[in-house]
């Protein structure tokens, strides 16, 4: 029989609309999902599953390629699925930040207590987080729509375990068992292992404590679930080992040699992380910046991988992290005397106290043939957008950074290069805000040059480079960059010590300052400032010892005051 997909699609859309309006009173704020189908020839095809996707919109792909079910049953299934996805947004994980915190909890728990299992926690953490979230939201939905949720759950268990749920490894049964215990319903698991049930009962109690949908406890509930998961994994491993001994070498398929647990795919598996479905890439980035402040650079990178954010390279992640850790702008502001500005004139009454020369007799007569001072007398008022004093001059920025070996590793938060990049990011933010060009000159044995550009993201990316080699100041490259800039330049040099060609460099910088350019040198060194550098102070250069990015920012802010 030919399946009428258009009719199925219409019914699915109608059902989604009903759930949105009748159960959530149109208050969700998220778009209605678009409906698509997965056919047997699709690479994502697996009987009984569906997946969701977010690109320009929220899309649910149903896998009903072989469905011989009634329309009413289909609608019931769609209702449960849509509710489930909505609750990921409305309840757990609620938002991207909570999801990342849950992942952090899982990875930290593993690293502290279970790392000896040598599991690839990065690829497993997302699944564990999803299972925890599924228990929470399915329980919420079960309590509101008992029979529909129960029916759907049983059918899902049947499909995903291919009818052999009893034979699944302990850790694979954890989510189903937890639901069965919390819901106090038979989900058809047929679990007879009393020890296992006791363990899960204890977990269920912890998950329910303080309210299962209490957002503030999601991270701690996830950690509890992770502990339980790995304890069961250990038990399963022991059991398999025992069995292996008994069966003389028959390995279990669920426990491969690498020790990586194979989990049942979660409900609503997604191509790009189901928790992000309602967020545009821009908005995710803001959240990532927020989360970066809660994690070390290494943790941040791991957690993003665990969250399935595959479109970010390691360098992208570093960039976000550095940006997040330098939320404060470093405003290298230069001032100059004001020039003239636009103005306009308008007629206004000339008062007796006004200078006589301001009186416009022609205009006054054209207003009234009788001159009454202060009433019919007129003058022109010049209104200009003009302020006396000084104004900011917007110069281009030349960042000169020492990439010698002593500057260290970008990932090491105590290294000089790490601090230099943090400071550079703050400075770049200021020049980005005034839309001026930036060039980068990195020096070690060989100079690295990033030519004048307003592509600030690429500049940031270019800075992410570890230190190696010596400290030869690239005078020729600096000269070239200065000549190529059509506007005045402020150069910022960040270095941790002695420059090999010190005399040559200082001589050039004197010349550079004489041409009306500006210079900051941040020395990441505890020693007193070299006599040669001191010469530059007389030419208007600002030279200061700053070990950290924060010190550099404080110096610049003090200068402004």
């Amino acid at each position, binding site marked *: 029989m030919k399946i009428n997909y258009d009719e199925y699609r219409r019914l699915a859309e109608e059902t989604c609309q009903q759930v949105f309006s009748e159960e959530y009173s149109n*208050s969700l704020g998220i778009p209605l999902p678009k409906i698509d189908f997965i056919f047997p020839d699709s690479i994502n095809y697996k009987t009984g599953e569906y997946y969701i996707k977010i690109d320009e919109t929220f899309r649910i792909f149903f896998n009903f390629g072989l469905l011989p079910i009634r329309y009413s049953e289909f609608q019931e299934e769609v209702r449960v699925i849509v509710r489930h996805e909505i609750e990921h947004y409305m309840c757990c994980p609620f*938002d991207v930040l909570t999801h990342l915190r849950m992942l952090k909890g899982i990875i930290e728990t593993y690293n502290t207590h279970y790392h000896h299992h040598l599991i690839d926690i990065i690829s497993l953490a997302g699944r564990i987080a999803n299972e925890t979230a599924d228990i929470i939201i399915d329980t919420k939905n079960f309590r509101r729509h008992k029979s529909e949720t129960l029916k759907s759950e049983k059918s899902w268990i049947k499909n995903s375990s291919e009818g052999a749920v009893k034979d699944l490894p302990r850790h694979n049964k954890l989510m189903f068992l937890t639901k069965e215990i919390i819901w106090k319903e038979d989900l058809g698991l047929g679990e007879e292992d009393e020890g296992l049930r006791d363990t899960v009962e204890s977990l269920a109690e912890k998950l329910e404590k303080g309210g299962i949908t209490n957002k503030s406890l999601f991270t701690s509930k996830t950690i509890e679930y992770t502990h339980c998961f790995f304890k069961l994994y250990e038990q399963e491993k022991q059991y398999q080992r025992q069995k292996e001994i008994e069966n003389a070498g028959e390995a279990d398929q669920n426990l491969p040699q690498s020790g990586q647990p194979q989990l049942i795919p979660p409900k609503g598996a997604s191509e790009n992380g189901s928790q992000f479905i309602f967020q545009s890439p821009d*908005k995710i980035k803001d959240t990532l910046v927020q989360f970066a402040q809660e994690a070390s650079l290494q943790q941040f990178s791991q957690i993003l991988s665990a969250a399935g954010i595959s479109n970010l390279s390691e360098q992208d992640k570093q960039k976000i992290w550095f940006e997040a850790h330098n939320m404060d702008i470093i405003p290298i502001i230069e001032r100059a005397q004001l020039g003239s500005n636009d103005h306009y004139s308008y*007629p206004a009454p000339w008062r007796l106290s006004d200078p006589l020369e301001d009186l416009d007799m022609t205009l006054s007569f054209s207003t009234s043939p009788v001159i009454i001072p202060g009433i019919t007398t007129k003058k022109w008022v010049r209104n200009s957008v003009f302020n006396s004093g000084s104004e900011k001059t917007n110069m281009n920025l030349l960042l000169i950074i020492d990439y010698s070996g002593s500057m260290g590793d970008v990932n090491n938060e105590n290294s000089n290069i790490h601090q230099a990049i943090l400071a550079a990011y703050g400075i770049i933010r200021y020049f980005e805000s005034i839309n001026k060009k930036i060039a980068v000159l990195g020096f070690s044995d060989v100079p690295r040059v990033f030519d004048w550009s307003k592509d600030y993201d690429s500049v940031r990316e270019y800075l992410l480079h570890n230190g190696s080699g010596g400290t030869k100041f690239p005078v020729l490259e600096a000269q070239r960059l200065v000549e190529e800039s059509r506007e005045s330049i402020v150069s910022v040099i960040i270095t941790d010590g002695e420059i090999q060609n010190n005399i040559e460099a200082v001589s050039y910088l004197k010349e550079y300052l004489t041409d009306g350019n500006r210079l900051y040198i941040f020395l990441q060194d505890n020693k007193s400032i070299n006599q040669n550098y001191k010469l530059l102070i007389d030419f208007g250069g600002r030279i200061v010892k700053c070990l950290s990015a924060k010190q550099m920012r404080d110096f610049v802010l003090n200068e402004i005051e």
Partner: protein
Amino acid sequence: MPNLNIKIVQALDKVRLSNLFVHNAELSGVKFTTESLKSRKVYLVETLAVVNALVDRGTMLLSGGHGGGKTTLAKYLGQIFYKLSTDEIEDCILRGHPQLTEEKILGSLDIAQLTGARKLNDLNQVDVVWNDFVDAPWKIIDELNRLSPYAQNILLSLLAESSVKYHNESKRLPAFSLYATMNPKDEGNFTMSLPFLDRFAIALPITMPDYDSLATIGKLEKSSRQDRLSSYLEDFDLLTVQEEIKDTKYSEEAELFINVIIAAYRLCDRISKESNESTNVDKGLCYGCHYNAPEKVCNKIIHPLSVRVKEDLYRYGKALAWYLGENEVKISHIQSLAPYLIWHRSSISKVFKRELRDSRFGNDAFTLNIDLNATEEIIKKIANEFDGLKVFLKEYDKVRKGRLEEIDFQNLLKEMESPNNNFLVLKKEIIPILKNLYKPVYDDIRKYNEKINAAKNMEELNNLKSELSARYDIPNRGYLADLIDVKKKMIGNKKFPEKIYKLPFEGFEELVLKSDELHKLIKSKFYDNFNPAIRKEEILANIEDSDIELKLEKQSAGGGKYMLKFKYKGPADHPVNVFLEQCNENKL
């Protein structure tokens, strides 16, 4: 006055058939319901322009390229509604340019008095001779954005207060309809501030006529057809119609919808948008906020709307419903109108506008005015959310009226607090109000409502009102006081028929000194400057606050003279009534 809207449409159709005005874009979402007009299209430009005329003191801004017919439209309508000749309508126009003096806008001192050709006035002062523009019932300001900020300030008081001041004399303006035109930005014009734009109730970007319509332009000489415009609307008095429109009722939902629009523009889960300048939706305010969702509007709006928008939506909604032949204002009227009343005086997220522009370009739907399009999108989203929200708002309204049983009140609160209801207005405003303010005194509120309903005379109602004035713990005492006023008015209307008296304007200031009571009322309204505007009804006393209702209107009595028409309701032996009866010129 049955079906005066038909007369207007007939006049407009004559204009269309004469090819004087040819814009064919339609106002979406509304239809005529008057039987004979059901097949008539609701044209966008003419409808909004007419609605502006139907509103008392309507102010409309028409923006668009040169030669799009903005000024022409305003002139034609003026000629039609006020039966003005082509020369007379020119006197109603103020043409904007940067060198406009106060005298060219408002008026000047009387030259005859200044030169001694005429004696000074009774107060020994020189009179101000006001320009025709000031007194004109139909005002057109051409090229508004060529006015300097100085001239804009002069007009601000005209628009905001309906009064103007020159030298030592101030003048309250008679009823008027105002149309301003504005060309695109260029080096010859000025930026207008948001508070100035806020004074324009409605704004419409006008496009050029389409290809088909252009085919008819320029073929015939139009001055003779233009001369006939003043005869297109016979037996029609705009001011009377404006008064009638004020009585148009609102459907419960339409009224709630207006409140929701205003609230949606204001609310934020994190800050008070009205007082926060340092952060906004484009500067990181919404990062990580759960209301930062595609269908929510709070993340797309920078500044809240002014209270004027609510008043204007209310007034213009009535005018549109009346024009379309409806008995009451419905949500569809508000939804169609709202974008035109909001876009020019709101501040919308640049990010949202950019995304919208990109998506429209992506779909080959090019945009005319991104601020208007963005506002339309926002109103659509608010309407969609309102669909789910209205049930709660109606119940909330019942709480204010004390119509819910205690148990239903508790259930309502519980339902509103359900996590399934992701409404910002419930979370931020209604739930806290219900919990903190209504819950402790709900029983009292119910009792007051019952007492008001049961009251049968003024005394009972007056006692209830004074009792309520001391009950600071009753959150809706303003509403209950209004209810008492309505009841008092009903009782007053039944008890006292309206009486009309006419007194001469000349010499009234001396005459009124003979009645302490009336003098007091006049003084409290006009202080020492008794200069009521022509054709504008002033309320001197109302039955809700005192024992009588008294209204005053200055009317032309012909021959350059004026008279004062008083409408009185109250006891026959009241001193004000006795005095007016004695002085009445024309006992009716």
